[in-house]
C-alpha cells in the first residue's frame, strides 16, 4: 500500500530551479502544482498524516488564519514538494456573484459555488467609480504565515490572477465581451486598475526571502481558441504579464504561468516565451496539446510544468493511468526542464487514489 507522506522529506527548491532552467540533470522527479482543492488536502491530511484539518471555506475576499497555512505547508512538505503555493487574498474585495449547484465531485458534499459567467461586479462607469479600489491593498499575511512553517530547502511560490479575475469577477466574461465593443475605455480602465493591484501585490511579496517565484494563473483560452482575440490579449493582458515577469527576474526569481486553453494557433505561447519571458508553462490537455508534444516543441525554450491530463486522471483505470504517467516521465524527464504534476489543479473531482498513483509513479520513476 503506497503511503504518500514521506517520513523524512528532503525539499530542495534550488535543485528544482536548476532542473527547470536546464542547468542540472534531475536526480529525481520533482513535483509541482498550482493548487490543490481543500477536499483533497483535507483527505490527505486526515488519512495519511492523522491530523485534523482546519477547514477554511471562505472566498478570496478573506485571509485565512495562520493555522490554515501551517497545515498547507506541512502537507506539501510531507508529500515531497520543493515548493508550496500561496494564493493572494483580497480583503475588502466585494463578493462576486456565484451560482450554487450540487457538487458532483468525488470528495465533495453539498453545494458548490460557480462564478457567474454573465456580468460581473462592474457593468458601467458608475460601478467602476463606486468600486472600492483604494480599499484593496496587498495583504502579505498569507506569505508571512506560510513562511513561519516552511522547512529548510523549501520555498513558496506566490499566485494570483489578473485577466482571469477580470473576466470571472470584475466584468464577467459576457460582460467583458460586450463592453469591449460598447465601452472600450471602461474595459481599459478596469484592466489598468486591476493590473496595478496585482503588480502591487507581487511587489509586496516578491522580495521576501522565502518566496522563490511567481506562479501566475490566467486562463486565456479554451479548447479551440483564445478567449478573446490574440491582439486584444497582446494589448490588454500580456504587457502586464511582462511586468510581473520582469519584477520576478529583477529579484532573481522565476516567473511561471498557468493558462488553460489553446494558445498555440495564434502564437500566444510564443509571446509568453519570447516577450513576457516566462520560465515555465503550466496547464495541458491532451486534446489541445499533449504535455509530451509541448516539451518536444518548446522544451528547449521554456520549462514544462505538470501536464498529466485531467480527464485521464479522473476517468482512466489504474493500469492505463500508470502506463500513461510512466510514458510522460520517460519522454520528459531526460534532459530536465520538467516537473511532474496534474495538467491543471488537484481538483476535488480527481479520485484521490488516482492522484496517489501520480505521486507514486513520480517517486518510483528511475529507481
Amino acid at each position: 500500500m503506497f503511503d504518500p507522506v514521506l517520513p523524512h522529506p528532503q525539499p530542495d527548491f534550488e535543485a528544482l530551479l536548476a532542473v527547470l532552467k536546464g542547468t542540472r540533470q534531475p536526480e529525481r522527479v520533482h513535483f509541482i502544482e498550482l493548487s490543490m482543492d481543500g477536499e483533497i488536502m483535507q483527505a490527505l491530511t486526515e488519512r495519511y498524516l492523522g491530523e485534523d484539518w482546519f477547514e477554511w471555506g471562505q472566498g478570496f475576499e478573506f485571509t485565512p488564519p495562520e493555522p490554515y497555512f501551517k497545515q498547507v505547508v506541512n502537507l506539501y512538505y510531507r508529500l515531497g514538494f520543493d515548493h508550496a503555493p500561496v494564493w493572494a487574498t483580497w480583503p475588502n474585495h466585494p463578493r462576486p456573484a456565484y451560482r450554487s449547484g450540487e457538487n458532483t465531485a468525488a470528495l465533495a458534499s453539498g453545494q458548490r459555488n460557480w462564478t457567474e459567467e454573465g456580468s460581473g461586479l462592474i457593468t458601467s462607469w458608475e460601478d467602476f467609480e463606486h468600486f472600492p479600489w483604494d480599499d484593496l491593498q496587498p495583504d502579505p499575511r498569507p506569505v508571512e504565515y506560510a513562511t513561519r512553517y516552511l522547512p529548510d530547502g523549501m520555498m513558496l511560490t506566490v499566485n494570483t490572477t489578473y485577466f482571469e479575475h477580470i473576466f470571472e469577477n470584475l466584468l464577467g466574461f459576457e460582460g467583458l465581451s460586450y463592453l469591449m465593443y460598447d465601452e472600450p475605455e471602461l474595459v481599459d480602465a478596469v484592466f489598468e486598475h486591476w493590473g496595478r493591484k496585482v503588480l502591487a501585490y507581487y511587489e509586496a511579496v516578491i522580495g521576501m526571502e522565502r518566496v522563490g517565484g511567481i506562479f501566475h494563473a490566467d486562463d486565456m483560452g479554451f479548447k479551440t481558441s483564445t478567449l478573446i482575440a490574440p491582439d486584444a490579449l497582446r494589448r490588454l493582458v500580456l504587457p502586464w504579464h511582462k511586468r510581473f515577469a520582469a519584477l520576478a527576474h529583477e529579484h532573481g526569481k522565476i516567473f511561471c504561468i498557468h493558462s488553460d486553453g489553446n494558445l498555440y494557433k495564434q502564437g500566444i505561447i510564443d509571446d509568453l516565451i519570447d516577450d513576457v519571458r516566462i520560465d515555465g508553462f503550466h496547464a495541458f490537455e491532451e486534446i489541445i496539446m499533449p504535455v509530451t508534444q509541448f516539451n518536444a516543441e518548446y522544451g528547449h525554450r521554456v520549462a514544462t510544468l505538470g501536464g498529466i491530463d485531467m480527464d485521464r486522471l479522473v476517468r482512466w483505470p489504474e493500469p492505463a493511468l500508470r502506463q500513461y504517467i510512466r510514458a510522460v516521465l520517460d519522454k520528459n524527464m531526460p534532459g530536465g526542464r520538467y516537473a511532474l504534476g496534474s495538467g491543471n489543479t488537484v481538483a476535488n473531482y480527481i479520485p484521490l487514489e488516482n492522484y496517489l498513483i501520480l505521486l507514486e509513479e513520480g517517486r518510483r520513476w528511475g529507481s
Partner: protein
Amino acid sequence: MGILEEINDAVIYGKRKDVVAGVEKALIEGYDAGVILHQSMIPAMTEVGLRFERNEFFVPEMLIAARAMQAGIDILRPLLVEGGVEPLGTVAVGTVQGDLHDIGKNLVALMLEGAGFEVRDLGVNVSPDHYVAAAQEGVQIIGLSALLTTTMPAMKAVIDALEAAGVRGQVKVMVGGAPVTQTYADEIGADGYSPDASSATRLAKQLLNIE
C-alpha cells in the same frame, strides 16, 4: 452596396443600430421579412461562424454579432409569423445536471438561432427528465453541454433516460463541451459531436438532413 448587403455587413460586425436601421429600411423598400432573414441575416451569422472556426473572430465578436442579429429578428418576428416562415428545425439545448457553466451552451444556442433554428434553452444543471419532456414535446434535436470531466457522464444519463422513455428514436442527440470528444460521443451513443458553437449549426443541419 444594396440594403441586404448593408444588413449582412452590420450583423457580421455586430453593429446593432445599423442592423435595426437596415431592417427597417429594407421593409420600407418592400423586401419580404423572409428574404431579409434568409438572404442577408442568416448568411451573415454563417459567415461569423466560419470566421470563428478560422480563428478570425472570437467569442466577443460572436456575441455582438448574435446580439445585432437578435435586434433585427425582433423587428422581423411578427412578420415572419404572419408570413408562415418556418424555422429549420427545433433544438433544445442545456448544460447537463451537476454542471452550471453556460457560456458554451449559450453560444451554441445563439449560432443555432442565427442559422434559422428555433431554440429552446433549458438552462443549466438540467436533469434528464427535462430533456425527455422536451423530446416528448417534439423537439428534433437535443444539445447537451458539459464543461467538466465529472459531469460528462450525465450526458449518458440523458441518453439512457430518452431510451427508457421510448423517445430516443424520435430525437437526435448532439454533445459538446471542453472535455467531450468524438470518441466519447460514440461511446455514449450520441448522434453527433461538435467541437465548437459554429460547427454545431452544421452538425444540426446534417442530423436533420438539411442542405
